[in-house]
């Protein structure tokens, strides 16, 4: 699996293919072109453009109600669209009925057939057409081997654990050797400790098969740990498409910066611009940022500072950016500590540090501390949309 095949300029690529002749692009497995969807007067999807390369793991992430599951249903053909087109391996499948698409899905609650055994569930997709019984059995056996289900083949669905059900659901979906696999929050019905293990297994499976996975989730950990590319959605629109690193370090919009959750956002006004540094006046004080974009004095901007780039010291240290704040509380997550602080202007700041448990206890609540960070760790976003 190479990560190099990730498309960077999705919008431009799709715009071209929309207008271009219908010659299939061999490397692109799935294309969504200018998709819009309305329920009556209410528009739930706006101008969705996305192309997914062969063998790519794409996570669609966003808050509930952002349209991510609707988008997945549209790819599967379970819901229609108002305008736009869906292409799978170059073929326009927009009007292809759901059962002729071969875009299998792994459901949130697995949707296994309760009256069938594990074997019958896995074989289901093969028993509908003209496959012969003796072709089916070895395929089911192979799939069961891949998903470690050999021992469970004759069990009933009600006798399975959550993790086993999920493996059956995946096996059932993959039996027809689809070009793509759709997953709708498949981890949300699992125990937390199982989730982490399944994330690893799922990623390995996807790399073994070499087919594209489209994975819908509201959980950032899942998206960041598995996806080659992340699509962040909000209110029926795509906010940003990018690698996990890009989403994390270069949020394109306020929504992404806030949704990703480890960023501190300071609103302010540009007061000075020189070759490399932009000075922003915020209620919390002056913030120096590094920016490649063009800003002019007077612009309303937001400075984005990742929580793990902040240093926390009892005394002022020499740094470009420094703000005084008092400690309001801490959370311990393994070796990581999250500090919540409040500035003099009542603004809440989040700091994440890798620290030994005992060190953090040394800081009393309401201690006056200094937050400092480097100019190049500060990113500027334009005015809120």
């Amino acid at each position, binding site marked *: 699996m190479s990560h190099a095949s990730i498309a960077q300029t999705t919008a431009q690529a799709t715009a071209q293919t929309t207008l271009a002749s219908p010659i299939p692009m061999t490397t692109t497995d799935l294309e969504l072109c200018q998709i819009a969807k309305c329920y009556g007067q209410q528009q739930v999807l706006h101008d969705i453009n996305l192309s997914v390369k062969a063998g790519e793991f794409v996570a669609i992430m966003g808050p509930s109600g952002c349209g991510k599951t609707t988008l997945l249903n549209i790819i599967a053909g*379970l819901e229609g669209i108002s305008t736009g087109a869906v292409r799978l391996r170059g073929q326009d499948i927009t009007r292809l009925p759901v059962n002729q698409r071969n875009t299998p899905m792994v459901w949130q609650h697995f949707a*296994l057939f309760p009256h069938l055994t594990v074997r019958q569930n896995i074989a289901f997709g093969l028993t509908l057409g003209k496959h012969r019984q003796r072709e089916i059995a070895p395929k089911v056996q192979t799939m069961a081997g891949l998903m470690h289900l050999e021992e469970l083949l004759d069990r009933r669905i009600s006798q399975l654990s959550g993790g086993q059900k999920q493996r059956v659901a995946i096996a059932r979906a993959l039996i*027809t050797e689809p070009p793509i696999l759709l997953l709708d929050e498949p981890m949300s019905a699992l125990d937390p400790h199982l989730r982490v293990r399944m994330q690893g297994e799922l990623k390995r499976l996807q790399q073994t098969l070499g087919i594209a996975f489209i994975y819908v989730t509201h959980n950032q950990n899942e998206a960041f740990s598995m996806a080659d590319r992340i699509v962040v959605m909000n209110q029926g629109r795509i906010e940003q498409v990018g690698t996990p690193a890009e989403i994390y370090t270069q949020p394109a919009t306020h929504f992404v910066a806030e949704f990703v959750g480890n960023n501190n956002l300071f609103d302010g006004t540009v007061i000075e611009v020189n070759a490399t540094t932009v000075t922003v006046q915020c209620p919390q004080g002056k913030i120096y940022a590094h920016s490649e974009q063009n800003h002019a004095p007077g612009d309303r901007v937001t400075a984005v500072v990742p929580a793990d780039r902040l240093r926390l010291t009892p005394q002022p240290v020499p740094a470009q950016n420094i703000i005084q704040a008092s400690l309001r509380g801490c959370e311990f997550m393994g070796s990581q500590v999250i500090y919540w602080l409040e500035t003099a202007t009542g603004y809440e700041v989040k700091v994440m540090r890798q620290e030994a448990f005992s060190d953090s206890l040394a800081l009393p609540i309401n201690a006056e501390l200094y937050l400092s960070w480097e100019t190049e760790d500060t990113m500027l976003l334009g005015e809120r949309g």
Partner: protein
Amino acid sequence: MTRQHQSWFRHSLAASGWVYLALGYGLLMLPILTLVIFSFETSRFPTLPWTGWTWDWYRQLLSDGKLLQALRASLLVSPLAAGIATILGFFAAYALNRFEFPGKKVLTILLIVPILVPPLILGVAFLGLLSRINLQGHLHSILLCHVVILIPTAIALITLRLMQMPKAIEQAAWNLGATEWQALWRVVLPWSIPGIAGAFLLAFTFSFDEFVIAWFVSGFEPTLPVSIYNFLGSNLSPALNAVGTIVFLMSVLLLIGVELLLLPMLLAQPTKSEP
């Protein structure tokens, strides 16, 4: 009120509650017990004091033939009517559960309302129509009419079961390549089996017990309730008790079916199809 008073009050309330329940069960069971017990009594008039045990009434029942013939007619009409109503009801329930379309409310009302119309009215109405097209007076006339009043029962019970089916299960079948018919046949139908079986049992009972419509349209091929009614008018006979006991044994079988199929469905908490 002191705590002691209160607990005394509660205990006596619970005690009177138990007495009430016992009385209630006694009254509910009284006629059935009477039927069974007096079918073995020697005296022609079912009254006390007890005069002795006998199988005579069962023998008389078997030799008489009229009631038995009616029982046979009922056992032919009721399963057929229940079967047809259940099949029609299953497809209707499926469509009403899955699709949204204009006029759905009106259609639902049309399909449910036959059970709200008193059978007396339907009996006269059926007779009016059937006598015009010369279909009255036979077992199949009863069959045709009974299906109408059984359809609502079937739709209601099967809908109850279908509402407990997660929508994703059917979607999963399509998603894996099943046509709508394949999904209906291989996923929805197996899921609905408890509802279908329960609907069949209930429909069978309704048809087996239905008197007025059968009285109007049956003519010379009466079902069991009509035959019993005619019997009541002419002469009282403990042979009725014997029939009653046989019918009661049948209903015990039905009840086991109800216990296994219907109640679990009625008592199930409604499951959400989508989170």
